[in-house]
């Protein structure tokens, strides 16, 4: 009887420890992306803007969009 009590107590302690040792299941954090204005590490970077300068990059894209996608600015 005494032995069974000890066994039971041991099982309760073991169950408690297992619960404490449970691994966290939270989601991993996304990898942060490098901003586009930091430039690409290849030889295809378009000229006309300064790598690392956000304002320059934004202005370059705006100019490119207006020149390449708005033919009215050329014809009218």
């Amino acid at each position, binding site marked *: 009887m005494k032995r069974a009590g000890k066994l039971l107590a041991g099982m309760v302690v073991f169950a408690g420890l297992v619960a404490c040792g449970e691994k966290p299941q939270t989601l991993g954090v996304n990898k942060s992306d490098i901003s586009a204005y930091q430039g690409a590490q290849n030889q295809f970077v*378009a000229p006309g803007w300064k790598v690392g300068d956000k304002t320059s990059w934004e202005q370059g894209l705006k100019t490119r*969009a*207006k020149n390449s*996608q708005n033919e009215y600015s050329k014809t009218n």
Partner: protein
Amino acid sequence: MARMKFVCDAERCIECNGCVTACKNEHEVPWGVNRRRVVTLNDGVPGEKSISVACMHCSDAPCMAVCPVNCFYRTDEGVVLHDKDICIGCGYCSYACPFGAPQFPTNGAFGLRGKMDKCTFCAGGPEVNGSQAEFEKYGRNRLAEGKLPSCAEMCSTKALLAGDGDVVADIFRNRVVQRGKGAEVWGWGTAYGSKQAGQPSAGAKS
């Protein structure tokens, strides 16, 4: 800068699929995956309309909301991207997306479903900008090269516009004001010439 956006002008799209081809070529997209495609409504009927569809980089993206492993993220420019190292290929995003943007490469006889692939607005992924690793997983990173998406830049009729939302809106607004909108921009008169063709009708123009 405003958010990066696509807009497709249904009055200009001629269903040439140049955007689809440009995208596949630029990113070396595998067989069976179409990041962009052209959808035609009332095909073969006079007045049919085509639009080019891909990921619309939603402001409140449903794919992002349903992803069980949180593999999506949004860049400062509003481009919705995902991390293929985290993606488990479950397909929830495919069911959530109203545009059918998420694609799943299949290979092998039993159609193994791989990691999700979709339009990146030519902005690559989490890897180093312009690196080989980024190219192999996500394709070219044209934004980091100071360029706009290949599909829009290759569009022969400039139906597909891409870029800063404010700039795109300005281009489209100017276009609509110049040409008019509605029935007068399509039909016999516009195609073969008439006094009214291409002229904004009196009033009722926004």
